[in-house]
């Protein structure tokens, strides 16, 4: 028999004996550690581990089953999006930043676009339809993002049914995204000045039937989890972080609201016309993983309420413009997918190629060079599913961002891993991190 190439390896280092575990080699590890006769073990978990919620590396110092120190290693998904945005036009920036936090792409786009619009001074010129459509997409996105959080959080503690039903419903939201933007993720749909396209025919009917279905499906989560003794036992009192801890660590979103403090930027500092919508800020008072689960569950109901109001308003806004009037900023044409599968507008092509030289020049200038944004800096924070997401956008008056920095809530909130998990069991580390709901694409950008 040849040697098993995947067997555990052992090596001696200055720090002590190192075991590399690759699966099915538990016995050799246990006997090796027992031989060593030491209680303290440093476990390097991840970055490729199904329970770390993405490419997150955890360095856990254990005494038996108790975690004495927990540290995060991040950076495995760093893609340099912020640097790349400095080499593209203001409009192209949307295409990049939508890829940061890949579970809530509309929020990345919105945070960036709001900051650009503030620098352009066109915040008040955004049409009503564009504003409502932005809110609609963001709230649908909140539902899909919370579903993934609950689903993967369930999977990580072994509740596989929670995972399957979570992804089942998320698929419905992604179908809506595909109908409206053409893509399931990486939409680049919210653009400076408005949104990329008007709603396609039949989209409102699809959303209405989705709302009706979700009203039947959401109670299933409550029935499955809320009073489930195993689920509660895993989540109750785990990952505790009180209000002062949250403020010191800059925690926002469901983690902050699970302490009972109703801080929601949609209410506290309304943007995008959120003050025109009727919804409640959801809180819980246990400051633990179970509270965060309940906050997310409640927030999906509130998002559904907002989506309903959006549908009502959009029904009255058929044919209304979705881009600002200003032709120096608005994209020159409204494109649709043509017979050839390309984004085209035959009317627009006829206009620029056959009727107006000036329109052709204008189109060319706006698409290649882009518009200029007055020098200055802006920071517009919004309430993403994970907390405060803000884009600090600096312009030097040019056609490209001078600097775009994203304050991503996953990045900030992940710092709480240590305080949430030290002193607890190894298994609770997984629950604590799942309750923060970090998305590594947003953490590393």
């Amino acid at each position, binding site marked *: 028999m040849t040697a098993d190439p995947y067997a555990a390896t052992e090596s001696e280092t200055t720090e002590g004996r190192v075991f590399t575990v690759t699966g099915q080699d538990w016995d050799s590890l246990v006997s090796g550690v027992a031989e060593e006769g030491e209680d303290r073990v440093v476990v390097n978990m991840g970055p490729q581990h199904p329970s770390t919620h993405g490419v997150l590396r955890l360095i856990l110092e254990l005494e038996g089953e108790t975690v004495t120190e927990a540290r995060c290693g991040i950076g495995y998904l760093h893609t340099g999006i912020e640097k790349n945005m400095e080499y593209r036009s203001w409009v192209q920036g949307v295409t990049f930043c939508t890829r940061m936090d890949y579970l809530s792409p509309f929020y990345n786009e919105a945070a960036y676009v709001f900051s650009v619009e503030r620098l352009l001074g066109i915040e008040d010129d955004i049409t009503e339809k564009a504003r409502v459509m932005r809110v609609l997409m963001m709230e649908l996105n909140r539902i899909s993002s919370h579903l993934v959080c609950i689903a993967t959080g369930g999977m990580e503690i072994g509740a596989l049914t929670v995972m399957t039903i979570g992804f089942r419903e998320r698929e419905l939201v992604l179908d809506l995204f595909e109908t409206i933007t053409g893509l399931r993720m990486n939409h680049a749909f919210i653009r400076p000045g408005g949104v990329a396209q008007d709603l396609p025919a039949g989209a409102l009917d699809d959303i209405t039937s989705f709302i009706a279905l979700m009203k039947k499906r959401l109670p299933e989560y409550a029935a499955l989890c809320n009073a489930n003794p195993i689920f509660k036992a895993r989540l109750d009192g785990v990952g505790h972080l009180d209000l002062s801890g949250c403020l010191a660590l800059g925690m926002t979103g469901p983690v902050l609201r699970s302490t009972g403090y109703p801080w929601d930027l949609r209410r506290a500092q309304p943007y995008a016309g959120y003050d025109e919508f009727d919804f409640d800020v959801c809180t819980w008072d246990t400051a633990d993983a179970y509270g965060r689960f309940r906050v997310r569950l409640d927030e999906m109901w509130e998002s559904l309420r907002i989506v309903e109001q959006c549908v009502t308003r959009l029904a009255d806004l058929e044919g209304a413009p979705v881009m600002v009037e200003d032709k120096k900023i608005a994209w020159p044409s409204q494109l649709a997918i043509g017979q050839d599968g390309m984004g085209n507008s035959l009317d627009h092509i006829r206009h620029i190629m056959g009727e107006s030289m000036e329109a052709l020049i204008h189109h060319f200038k706006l698409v290649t060079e882009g518009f200029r944004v007055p020098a200055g800096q802006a920071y517009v924070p919004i309430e993403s599913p994970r907390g405060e997401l803000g884009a600090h956008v600096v312009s030097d008056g040019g056609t490209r961002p001078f600097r775009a920095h994203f*304050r991503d809530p996953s990045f900030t909130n992940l710092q709480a891993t240590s305080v949430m998990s030290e002193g607890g069991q190894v298994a609770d580390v997984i629950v604590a991190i799942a309750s923060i709901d970090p998305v590594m694409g947003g953490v590393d950008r």
Partner: protein
Amino acid sequence: MTQGGPKGPDAPDDKGLEHTGTQDPSGDSVRETGGEVVGTRQGMFGVRGTGDTSGYGGLTRQVTMPGSSTPPFGGWFDEVAQALQQATADAGFDDAVEGVVVHVGEITFHVKRERLAEVARLLRDSESLRFEVLASLSGVHYPDETNRELHVVLHLLSMTHNRRIRVEVAAPDADPHVPSVVATYPTADWHERETFDFFGVVFDGHPGLTRIEMPDDWPGHPQRKDYPLGGIPVEYKGATVPPPDERRSYN
């Protein structure tokens, strides 16, 4: 109506923050003095050297960031500015704030870098300021601003008063040291590590200033303007597209 502006119970009335374009919120009461010159722009359409037939080759424009404002700033900006002035004077360093910029409805306090840690503590603890949360800390590199190349920008949030301010400090490239605010805002830990990683700003007093996003042995600081973006030309159907930082850029 100012979208995104503070609208809480203590927020100033909308009139005070009304703005159009890049005007200051309170209209003529704010007089702009010369802003920071962060660079110059020459020519147009991205053409450099000979071959510029556009006629704009000789055009030279200064790139100026919004300049300092003088009080009254309008709305609650004055309250915060006076409270900060009072607090710094009481603590014995009333020269800590170098300038105040009010632009697009946001207020920025430029603080002397050696006073940053003390000012941060005052901003958090003073009754009338109460900026309990450090929302964000990051860097901006202005290579053409001599002796102030590296800026560190802090976004502070007061949940008590529902207000937001920006605090900015500058450090020369030759001496990239800025005091750490981790002692006041523990959340700054990772933010400062990231700013060190990307810009090379050294935060004095940080408990463990190591790289966070890039590998530990990475040479250089990628977000600095003198660090190239990198990339390779892409060939497609016989044509070659140069990497993004070598394509035509419009100046």
